[in-house]
């Protein structure tokens, strides 16, 4: 039975053994040398000294752990600070609260599943997929109760879309408050979502002609719910079970959530359990008491679902300042709930002059879009801004322009231009300009 394949296996195995033996001898020799020299330095310090050229780094001198050492992979121990973070003073309890994505460390348009921002209204539900059901009823011809297995049998699509909480930047209406990209803009994330079109499900149940609205509701402790116009449901909404190639994370509604592309985060109901079709909205607590905007004349706006064009520079930022004068690449993200980003402009002087930034492919509708711009910093103070324009021609406004119309108590839908002040020493601060 010993064929060529087996001989190759034998040979490979032999090499591994030899190499392990070699590494062990190298370690022994190093240890012996340290003892002989009478060095009191610990192994970590010794390794750090040895890691640079021309030295062969310590991790090059031994075998690393083998496959399935970590059956589910984890980020490097050296990026352990790249985590979701919260503002503890912001909310009464962490179960009805928000955490922020570290955008300062997000290198592409896809947010890592473990870093996707969280927003809960009744904590993170732990749902057993075997017992999870989606009920669709109301003004339909054929009410349906679906298992996860049923839903996964239906035709599937994958789409890359951002989700942004409309309260992103909500703490900045009055003034610059938080000196951090993560906390001023981290309530936006982006993922590839896989699931079934909501229109497929609605065709399956058969809408009655009076059907105008859908109530979408979660299985969480708050039974989070919103009313959605049926046109949007039939347009591009998705009922998804996949997030970036794996099952939805519990934080994102495992096993099933709604994706309402380009609309504010809270309508993307997580742990989706029920869709009721009706002829008028329900005016739930989350679309009356919350997620409405108080205007200066004391009237309030409701059903302001759409996320208008927005952008932010992610380098430099307060967390990632430049290190002295020289050539840098300004980097950032732009997004619009109305479609594709058409272009992004960057200003280095607080909005006096603007230059066109480069958009990095892919430029997808209702998705984070990466932009870059070459910046030769002369070491003088600078006021960095980015301005997004979407394919409808909508131009991202300044905070002054927004305040002139909406005052300072709207809380939601702050899509204003962000200004980063770069001081001569390289430190970066969140500021607002007159």
């Amino acid at each position, binding site marked *: 039975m010993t064929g060529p394949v087996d001989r190759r296996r034998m040979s490979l195995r032999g090499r591994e053994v030899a190499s392990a033996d070699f590494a062990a001898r190298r370690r022994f020799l190093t240890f012996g040398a340290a003892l002989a020299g009478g060095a009191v330095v610990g192994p970590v310090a010794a390794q750090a000294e040895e890691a640079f050229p021309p030295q062969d780094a310590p991790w090059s001198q031994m075998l690393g752990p083998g496959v399935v050492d970590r059956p589910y992979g984890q980020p490097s121990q050296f990026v352990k*600070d790249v985590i979701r973070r919260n503002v*503890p*003073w912001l909310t*009464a*309890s962490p179960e*009805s609260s928000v955490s922020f994505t*570290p955008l300062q460390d997000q290198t592409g348009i896809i947010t890592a599943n473990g870093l996707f921002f969280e927003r809960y209204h*009744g904590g993170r539900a732990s749902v057993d997929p075997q017992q999870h059901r989606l*009920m669709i*009823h109301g003004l339909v011809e*054929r*009410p*349906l*109760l679906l*298992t996860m297995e049923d839903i996964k049998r239906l035709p599937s699509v994958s789409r890359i879309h951002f989700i942004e909480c409309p309260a992103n930047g909500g703490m900045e209406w009055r*003034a*610059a*408050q*938080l*000196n*951090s990209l993560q*906390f001023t803009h981290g309530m936006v994330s982006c993922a590839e979502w896989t699931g079934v079109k909501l229109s497929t499900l609605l065709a*399956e*149940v*058969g809408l009655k002609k009076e059907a105008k609205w859908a109530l979408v*509701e979660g299985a969480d402790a*708050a039974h989070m719910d919103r009313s959605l116009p049926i046109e949007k449901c039939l347009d591009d909404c998705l009922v998804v079970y996949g997030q970036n190639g794996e099952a939805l994370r519990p934080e994102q509604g495992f096993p099933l959530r709604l994706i309402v592309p380009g609309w504010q985060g809270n309508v993307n109901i997580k742990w989706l359990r029920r869709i*009721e079709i*009706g002829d*008028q909205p329900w*005016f*739930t*607590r989350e679309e*009356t*008491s919350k997620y409405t905007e*108080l205007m200066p004349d*004391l*009237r309030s*706006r*409701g*059903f*302001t679902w759409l996320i208008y064009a927005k952008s932010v520079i992610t380098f430099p930022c307060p967390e990632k300042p430049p290190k002295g004068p020289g050539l840098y690449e300004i980097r950032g993200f732009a997004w619009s709930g109305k479609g594709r980003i058409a272009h992004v402009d960057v200003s280095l002087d*607080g*909005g*006096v*002059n*603007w230059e066109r930034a480069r958009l990095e492919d892919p430029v997808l509708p209702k998705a984070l879009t990466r932009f870059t711009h070459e910046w030769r910093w002369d070491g003088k103070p600078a006021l960095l801004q980015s*301005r997004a324009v979407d394919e409808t021609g*909508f131009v*991202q406004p*300044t905070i002054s*322009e927004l305040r002139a119309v*909406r005052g300072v*108590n709207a809380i939601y839908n702050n899509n204003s231009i962000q200004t980063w*002040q770069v001081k001569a020493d390289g430190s970066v*601060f*969140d*500021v*607002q*300009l007159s």
Partner: protein
Amino acid sequence: MSSCRKRAAVCLAMIAAAAATVMAANASAQQPHPAAHYGIGTAPTAAEIAGWSIAVRPDGQGLPPGSGNVDHGANVYADQCAACHGTFGEGTGRYPKLTGGSLKGDRPEPTVGTYWPYATTLFDYINRAMPFPSPHVLSADDIYAITAYILNVDNIVDNDFVADRNSLPKVKMPNRDAFMWQDPRPDTAAKECMKSCVDPKMIKIESTAEGKDLTPRTTGPLDAMKPR
């Protein structure tokens, strides 16, 4: 008399009592609908739909049978709600203030009394999500009573008000007509100017986050900054 969940249990018990009916219902529930294209899933039974249909509309659709008055509401509220929302809805710590307040001034207080457009939403939300630490334990009667109590503290209903599926839709909330349900955006008209867009002398830093002690740290372990 019973919460929506309990109502579902009662319905199920009734169905179980009528064995023949139950068999017929189950049989039909297991059959895919012939008119559906994919023919997957099952038809939910009336009891299954009733158990989950908790949404209440301003016209009263979805409100269950039962009722509750202000006095009973004061007692239930004291037991179930006051720890977070205060004895008279004034709120504690950062938990929401429910009553009183004003929308005017520097720090508007959007409470049930000053802000909520519909009284029915109060029943829906208490039933849906409260009490916050252990939701879905209150009976419909108790929820009607708490609703009556909160509305009474805000002087929206009289002391003898009884909340039920008929009375709640008729309550006119003070702020009902102040909402615009059509999105007026775009409400800004920024132009894409590229050169000399503003006078450099006019650019002043109006506010800065520098020196404000509000930002949690973004390196190291999570910041346990105390609520302020």
